[in-house]
Structures are given as structure tokens and as C-alpha cells.
């Protein structure tokens, strides 16, 4: 589905992504892990067209999508969430979701003026869909609340909810789990599995919760210092010394001594 | 008959010429006060000035102000407006529709000569078309044939410089560069740089004395780009001399003025009233207001029609000549059925569609003071 070839992205002299090559297979749920600052988010941003690569190429289904603007990629079915929630803060939660689907006929001025009937119909459909998503995310009581007033975790949920508004081919999730209650996260995990199995979405997700990764992802790619450090099943990764050293660590030193 | 008649005084009390207008308004009101104090005016009718702000540049605000004067305060005539742009706006939007006569002391743009006015528009200042000739004539007499020109970038400056340049070139002169300047801007180095490069025997400055014009001269003197200047009417002010002192010695210029007793008399009158009458267009303002009052008297009623119909008659010959400070006398003459020829502070002689014929004072600056050469 997605192939990244020796991708570089430098900030001044700093190589945030330093020649990473990787592949995300169609229909997979690929996990992307790595220490803080490994370049994961930067990689996402380059793939999603937010940042220009310094060099290297990105392909989607064989097509060269390097440097395509984000909105064009969206229409190709590539969706992403943001690590630091990017809600539309002065709009209600419902509106945050309803604005997502592309090619709404009400998005042209002509229709906004003269096609009110058709718009009303479409809107009714969107509204239903948005309410379903809000329900699923357990924030339906907040549908008319401004998104700017949500709690940190709720914003992350809304962020995820947007990807559920349309039929995507591939979804990039950047730490949706951070700050989300673990019980809810399990439900979300179930949903991701369902979307993957029933609707054939491909997922690529950055996450630091190894349990969550372990439950959903195969394969898992480990990045460090802008390069791919290892790739394989969760078990292989967990056993990889380099990964343990750079990323997983060996647990608490002080734990035993606590009360 | 009412015992009060209101006269609108529309000048730019805020905006780019805000430092000139208080003196102009004072002078106009001085004339009205004189009329009232004489006790000779129309069976005890008092003339009350009502000020309004033309802003000099915002036609809409000026129109609104004028409209308010006319419809709310019920003014029967307007002394004003000051700048040519807003004057045109007030004329066509307020004065014409309501039949209110306007006497502008200072709107000198040649374009106003041909503006549709239905006989309602007068000005006590001459059109700049005439001043252009005068200035060119001065240079011809002095035998100067290459000059650089700078003018304030509005209808007044542009109109005046057009008039000057065409006359000057017709006399065989060469203008090396004619560069406009915007008023009240922070810096004039660019203009001076270009003008200095172009060169010329002197710099002709057609601007405002307390604004861009002064800025240009100062900049030219400071950099040594020019040391002699020829000044248009807007540049004549004591403040300019006070500021620049003897640096201006040798420069010269022209200003609407008339020889003779009227001007001196005005200085006396204004000094006595504690008003600075030596500023630009104060004389014209006094005359404008005086003419309105006299025209009313001649018409026998304090109405717009009276002003419109009689203004030319009182301003021009035949009749007894009237100077500033003699308004009471004039009123008496008119009351007695006599005829007057208002001379006023500026030797008023209204020609054509009701604008001052214009006589100009050609002066030079010697030892930091204006010195009259002759009148033309």
C-alpha cells in the first residue's frame, strides 16, 4: 500500500528522518514505535504531505505521491490523526465531524445558495453518521460543546472520530492512545480491528503502549534516530536487544523498594 | 423675520491642514462679529457662525457635516469649504440640492471654475490657473530658465504645477523634474535626492508651509541640494520664516494679496482682536464671511437667495470701496440704498463664475523677512 524509499527529512543540520525505508502492506495494521524524537511523527508528516521531504520518495499503491498536498492525499483515501490534537476549537464536536467528508455538494457556493434541498438531505445523513461516531467514542453528551472546551483525552477521541467519518484506504494514527483511558482504548482497539477486517482499512499507528501495540499490530517497525532499527512481529521486537536498549528498557529500578 | 441667521463655517479642523484652519475660522468669525457689533445689520438680525469639520480629505464626512449644518442648524450660507476636494463634494451634494450658497476662502483648484454650481459657488481666492502665469512671469523677469518643481500631491498642487509648467515652458523655460510630495509624511529624502540629481537654478515649491512644502525645503537646505526657492501661495507664512530664519534669504514667491490699505487694515483689525491674521487664507476667510453678510444686507433679508443674488454686486464695482473693519459703514450704505464695492483684505474682485480675479504679491525674502517687490 505505502512504500517509503530512503526518505530524508532534515531540519537545518538535524536529520529527523535519516534514510528510512519501509513498507506498509495492504490490509495490515502496522505498528511504528521508537524512542522519543526518533522521527516517527516527522515521517508521518512527510507521507501525509505536511512536510516536504529533503530527499527520497513515497509511493501509494505504486503511485508516486511524494510532495502531494494533504488535501489531495485525503481524496486518495489517506487519512491521519495528529499527535497533538488539532481540533477546530470554535466549532461543536458534531461540526468537527460533519466537516470531514469530502465532495460534499454543499461545499460549493452555488449549491449553498441554490441547492438547499439537496444539502439538507446530505446533511441529515452526515448528522446521523456523526452522532453514531460520537456515541461510539462515549462523548455524545458533548455534541454541541465547542471542541476547544474538551478535556485532553476527549480531544484525542475526536481526532480519532474524524477518521471514522469517511471510508479510508489507509489511516495513520499518531499516538491516539496517549491520554485516553485504557478501558476506552480497548474498545477503540476493537473498532480498529473491526474496520481492518470488515472494511479492509490499512492502519499504521504510532504508539508507546506496548500492550496495545501487541494486541493489534503485525508487523511492528522500530525507528531510532531517523532510521529503521528493526522490523518484525511483536514477539521478535520485544526480544530484540537493540530495541530493548534504545526503547523498551528494563523496568523500574526503584519499584521494589516502594511501600 | 428671525432675529438670528446662521452661517456655516466648514473647515478641516482635524486632518492634514488642521494647523491652518483655526486662524481661518477665527478670521471669518471676526467679520461676522464685526457685522453684529455694528448694530446696522438687518433690523437687529444676528449672524451666528456654526463650525463644522470638513476634515479636508474625507468627502463623506464633509458632506455629512454640511448636511447637518444645512438641515439641522438651518444655516443659510456656508463659508467654506477649505480644500478643493471636499469643497467639490459639499457643493454638489449639499449646496446645490438645497440651494445654499458657498463662499470658499481657499479652494483654488482650476477644476472648480467649470464645476456645475447653479450660481451658488463663489471663492475669494483666485484659481491657480492665474497663479501659474504669475509665477512663470516672475521667472521670466528674473531670466531664470531651468528649474525643478515640487508640488503637494493633491488637486491644488497638481493643478497649480500644471498651470505653472505650461506657462513656464511657453516662455521657453525648462523643468528638469517635477516631483510631487505627499503632505505630513515622515521623510522627504527620496524626493530631494531625485530633484538634486535633476538639478536646476532653483526649486519651485508649490505646497503647504507647515507641512510637506516646509519638509521639502528643510530637506533641500540640509543636504545643500538647493539654496534658492520659488514659493507658491500655500508656502507663505511667518512660521516658515521663523523656523528657517535667514536660510531662505534670496528666495522669492507669490501669494494672493493686494496692495494697499485693505491688507494693512486687516492686520490692524485682526491684531486688535487678538487673532493671528498673517496665516494663509485668513484674509480670504474674512472676506468670504464679510461678503456673505453684505450680500444679505443688499438683498434685504438673511436668506440664501439674497446671498446668491447679491454677492457679485457687493463684491465688485461700482460703489464705495470697503476695507476690513469698515463693515459697519458698508452696512449703513447698503441700508441707505447705496452701492458698495467690497475691497476687503484681498482686494476682492470676483470674475467669471464668481471667483477672485486675483492679484498677487511678488515678494523676496531678505534678512529673514518678506519684502514686497511688486503686485501683479
Amino acid at each position, binding site marked *: 500500500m505505502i512504500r517509503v524509499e530512503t526518505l530524508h527529512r532534515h531540519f537545518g543540520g538535524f536529520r529527523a528522518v535519516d534514510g528510512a525505508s519501509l513498507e506498509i502492506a495492504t490490509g495490515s495494521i502496522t505498528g511504528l514505535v521508537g524512542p522519543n524524537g526518533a522521527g516517527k511523527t516527522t515521517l508521518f508528516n512527510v507521507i501525509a504531505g505536511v512536510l516536504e521531504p529533503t530527499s527520497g520518495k513515497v509511493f501509494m499503491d505504486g503511485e508516486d505521491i511524494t510532495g502531494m498536498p494533504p488535501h489531495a492525499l485525503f481524496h486518495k483515501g489517506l487519512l491521519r490523526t495528529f499527535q497533538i490534537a488539532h481540533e*477546530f476549537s470554535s466549532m461543536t464536536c458534531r461540526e468537527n465531524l460533519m466537516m470531514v467528508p469530502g465532495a460534499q455538494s454543499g461545499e460549493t457556493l452555488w449549491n449553498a445558495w441554490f441547492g438547499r434541498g439537496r444539502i439538507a438531505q446530505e446533511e441529515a445523513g452526515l448528522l446521523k453518521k456523526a452522532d453514531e461516531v460520537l456515541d461510539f467514542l462515549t462523548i455524545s453528551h458533548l455534541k454541541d460543546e465547542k471542541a476547544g472546551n474538551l478535556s485532553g483525552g476527549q480531544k484525542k477521541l475526536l481526532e480519532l472520530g474524524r477518521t471514522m467519518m469517511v471510508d479510508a484506504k489507509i489511516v495513520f494514527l499518531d499516538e491516539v492512545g496517549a491520554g485516553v483511558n485504557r478501558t476506552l482504548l480497548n474498545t477503540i482497539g476493537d473498532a480498529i480491528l473491526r474496520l481492518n477486517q470488515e472494511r479492509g482499512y490499512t492502519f499504521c499507528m504510532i504508539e508507546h503502549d506496548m500492550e496495545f501495540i501487541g494486541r493489534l499490530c503485525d508487523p511492528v517497525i522500530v525507528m531510532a534516530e531517523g532510521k529503521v532499527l528493526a522490523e518484525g512481529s511483536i514477539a521478535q521486537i520485544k526480544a530484540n536487544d537493540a530495541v530493548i536498549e534504545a526503547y523498551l528498557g528494563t523496568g523500574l529500578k526503584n519499584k521494589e523498594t516502594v511501600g | 423675520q428671525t432675529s438670528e441667521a446662521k452661517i456655516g463655517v466648514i473647515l478641516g479642523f482635524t486632518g492634514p491642514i488642521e494647523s491652518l484652519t*483655526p486662524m481661518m475660522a477665527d478670521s471669518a468669525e471676526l467679520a461676522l462679529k464685526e457685522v453684529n457689533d455694528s448694530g446696522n445689520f438687518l433690523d437687529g438680525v444676528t449672524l451666528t457662525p456654526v463650525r463644522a469639520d470638513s476634515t479636508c480629505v474625507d468627502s463623506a464626512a464633509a458632506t455629512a457635516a454640511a448636511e447637518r449644518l444645512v438641515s439641522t442648524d438651518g444655516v443659510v450660507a456656508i463659508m467654506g469649504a477649505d480644500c478643493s476636494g471636499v469643497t*467639490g463634494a459639499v457643493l454638489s451634494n449639499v449646496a446645490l440640492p438645497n440651494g445654499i450658497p458657498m463662499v470658499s476662502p481657499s479652494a483654488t483648484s482650476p*477644476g472648480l471654475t*467649470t464645476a456645475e454650481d447653479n450660481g451658488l459657488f463663489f471663492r475669494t481666492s483666485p484659481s491657480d490657473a492665474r497663479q501659474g502665469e504669475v509665477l512663470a512671469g516672475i521667472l521670466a523677469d528674473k531670466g531664470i530658465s531651468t528649474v525643478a518643481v515640487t508640488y503637494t500631491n493633491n488637486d491644488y498642487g*497638481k493643478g497649480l504645477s500644471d498651470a505653472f509648467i505650461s506657462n513656464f515652458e511657453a516662455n521657453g523655460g525648462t523643468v528638469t523634474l517635477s516631483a510631487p510630495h505627499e503632505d505630513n509624511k515622515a521623510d522627504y529624502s527620496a524626493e530631494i535626492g531625485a530633484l538634486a540629481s535633476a538639478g536646476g537654478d532653483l526649486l519651485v515649491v508649490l505646497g503647504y508651509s507647515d507641512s510637506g512644502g516646509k519638509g521639502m525645503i528643510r530637506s533641500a537646505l540640509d543636504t545643500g541640494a538647493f539654496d534658492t526657492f520659488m514659493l507658491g501661495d500655500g508656502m507663505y507664512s511667518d512660521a516658515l520664516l521663523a523656523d528657517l530664519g535667514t536660510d531662505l534669504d534670496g528666495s522669492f514667491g507669490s501669494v494672493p494679496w493686494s496692495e494697499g490699505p485693505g491688507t494693512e487694515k486687516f492686520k490692524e483689525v485682526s491684531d486688535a482682536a487678538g487673532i493671528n491674521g498673517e496665516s494663509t487664507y485668513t484674509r480670504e476667510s474674512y472676506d468670504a464671511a464679510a461678503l456673505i453678510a453684505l450680500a444679505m444686507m443688499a438683498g434685504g433679508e438673511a436668506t440664501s437667495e439674497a446671498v446668491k443674488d447679491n454677492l457679485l454686486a457687493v463684491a465688485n464695482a461700482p460703489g464705495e470701496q470697503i476695507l476690513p473693519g469698515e463693515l459697519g459703514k458698508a452696512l449703513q450704505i447698503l441700508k441707505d440704498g447705496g452701492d458698495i464695492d467690497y475691497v476687503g483684505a484681498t482686494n476682492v474682485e470676483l470674475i467669471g463664475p464668481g471667483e477672485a480675479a486675483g492679484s498677487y504679491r511678488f515678494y523676496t525674502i531678505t534678512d529673514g523677512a518678506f519684502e514686497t517687490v511688486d503686485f501683479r
Partner: protein
Amino acid sequence: MSDRVRGFVLFGIVAVLLLGTGFVQSWNSALLILNMGLVSAVMALGVNLQWGFAGLFNVGVMGFVALGGLATVLVSMPPVSAAWSAGAGRLFLALALAVAVIAAAVLCWKRLRKGVRGWVVALLLIAGFFAFRAVFDPAVALIEAIDPATTGYLGGLGLPVVLAWPVGGLLAAGVAWMIGKVALGLRSDYLAIATLGIAEIIIAVIKNEDWLARGVKNVIGLPRPMPYEIDLQNDAGFVQSAASLGFDATTASTLYVKLGYGVMFAVVLVLLLVLAQLALKSPWGRMMRAIRDNETAARAMGKDVTRRHLQIFVLGSAICGIAGAMMTTLDGQLTPGTYQPLRYTFLVWVMVIVGGSGNNFGSVLGGFLIWFLWVQVEPMGQAAMTLITAGMADGSWLKGHLLDSVQHMRLLTMGVILLLVLRFSPRGLLPER
């Protein structure tokens, strides 16, 4: 108080202010304020479209208003045939040359390699500039020589002046499109200063290109869509019907003409307001608000932010252009020197913000209210001063000084009122929601 009630009350207050002006001052004043209020409301609507809907910080309103004014001259004034035969051909040749050079430069920029293209384009532009000047300057000299005191320009097309309104909109839209292509990538205050600069450039062109619309020499006596008051006063039929309504001819004619303008302006305002409101309350409006809130996220959600920005920039500017044409029609003259940022850009912004940005009705309200104040603070300031000085001894220095300074009260009063209004509703009188 619900939003709707609040809206009614506030519009009611404006109506009362206008009616009050009618009763206390005069109906002519009231109508004049109303008319400019309508024009201001249209301008505010345009700015609100850009800022309130899409978060575009356009401080170049003045430029677009002036373009509308220019359109009025170009459409309605009679052509100056002498000028046309003197230099028009050459002039248009020069303009065509300019367009060709710019097109070639853009093409080079797009086609050439990074390293060389800067130099090539620069060279092309400089050479093109001199070629252009060589053709252009003589043409201008020829045109401007034709009776400079009264014409000295090409004149217009001699068409009905109302046509200038849509044309003004189109002209503004066209220029906005070009500006938008170049400058819309800039953020907030940087875009602001860029648009401010472009407005200054537009004014500079109108002021200095005399062949176009006489520059600072002004075009006065523009044709009007309404009859002249004088003609009405001389029209026996009109005088009679006025008399039958109990009006004298002068008053009736002035009111009639002003009402006529008022109705025309109101039609335009209502039309634009309806369109703006429909647009805001649609998925299009939602998309715009999303873009305003967070561009990055909107892009990721498939919205073509650049294109939408351009679209709304062009639309908003076009509305300002229409308003500008309407205003120049009302003034009956084009006086480029009067275009000052304070009056035509910042005052409009005050209208939008005080009214409540993002809310169309708020902008309209702000337009009426602020314009009313702009005109009426002068007498208000005077009244305040008279009140303050009432207790002082006649002839005291302070009293004299205060009375002399009364004109400065105008802006001071404006400032105080502005601060008071914003104090009681810091998000505008009719906030977005």
C-alpha cells in the same frame, strides 16, 4: 437575553438613533447617515466574509473601495475622444506589452531550473520595464496634454452609472485574484501589512496615473442614477405632489433623491446579506470556519485551503469594490486624495469587530452604528464640551482653551465610545455564537 432578542434590540436602537436624528436634526441628515450606513454595512460584510468566515487579515480594504470608485469613472464618464485619438492606441499597446512581459516572466519562473531562473526573470522584468516605459510615457504625455484642467484623461465608457457597481466588484475581484495568488501564503499580520501595502500601491496608481482618472485632479460631476434635485424643483408635477404631501419643493426633492439612493443601496445590502447568510449556514460556511480554526487540520481533512482562501479573498474584495462603487456614485465624484487607511480600512474593521466578527448581522449592525457615531461624535463632542465649560467663568483661560479645542473632541469622543462599547461586549455586540 437570547441572541435573537439581543439582535432585535440592538437593531432597534440603531433605528431609534436614526429616527432620533430625523426628529432632532433633520430627515436629510438621517437619510444621509442611513445611506452611508448602508454602504458601510456592505463594506463590513465584505471584510467579515474574509476575517469572520475565513480568518484572512485583509487590511487593504481601502484599495478595493478605491477600485470600485475607479470603476464608476471608467463606466459612467463620457469618453474624451480627443484623448482617445491622441494616444489610446499606443497606451494599450504599452499595457499589452506589460502583460506579455509579466506572463513571460511567470512562465520562465515555472519552467526554468532553480539556479538560473531568478536571474533570467529579473533580467526579463528589467528589460521589459524599460521597453514598457519607452512606449508608455509618450502615450501618457499625449493624453494628459489634452485640456489638463478639465480632462487630460481617456474618460469613461459613458454607460449608466449603476452598471459601475457590478463592474467595480469585478475590477476589485480581478485585482484581488492577482494579489491572492501572490500573497495569500502569508500569515496573519504579515498578510495584513502586505495587503495594506497593496492598497497603498493601488491608491498611488490612481493618484498618479492621470490618464486613467485624472489622478489627484479629481473627477467631479459623475452621472447619477437619480435625477438632480434642481430638476425636480423645476418640475411642476413634482412640486405639486410634494406640496400635496405638505413638503416644500427643496426638502421634498432632497429627501426624494436620498430615499432613492437608500432604496437602491438597501436592495444591494439585503441581497448580499442573504447570500452571505446562506453561505455561512451551509457546509461551505462550516468548511470555512474549520479552515479559520486550524488550517493544518483542515488540509488533512481534504480541504484545499489555498483555493478556498483565494475564493473568499476574491469574494470579500469584490463586495468591498461594489461598496466602493456605490459610495463614489453617492458622492458624485472620485477624489483619490481622500482615500486614507484610517477612514476606509480601519474604520471598516472597527465596524466588523464592534459588530461581532463572524456574524453577518453583527457586521451590518456595526456598519450602521459606527458610521452613525463617526458622523455624530462631532456634535456630541461639542455638546460635551459645552456642558463641561458651562460652569466656568466666561473669559477664563481654561474655558477659552477648552472651547478652542472642541474639534479635537471628535476623535476623542469616538475613542471613548469605542472603548465603552467593547467594554460591555468584548466579543462584539452580536458575537458569533
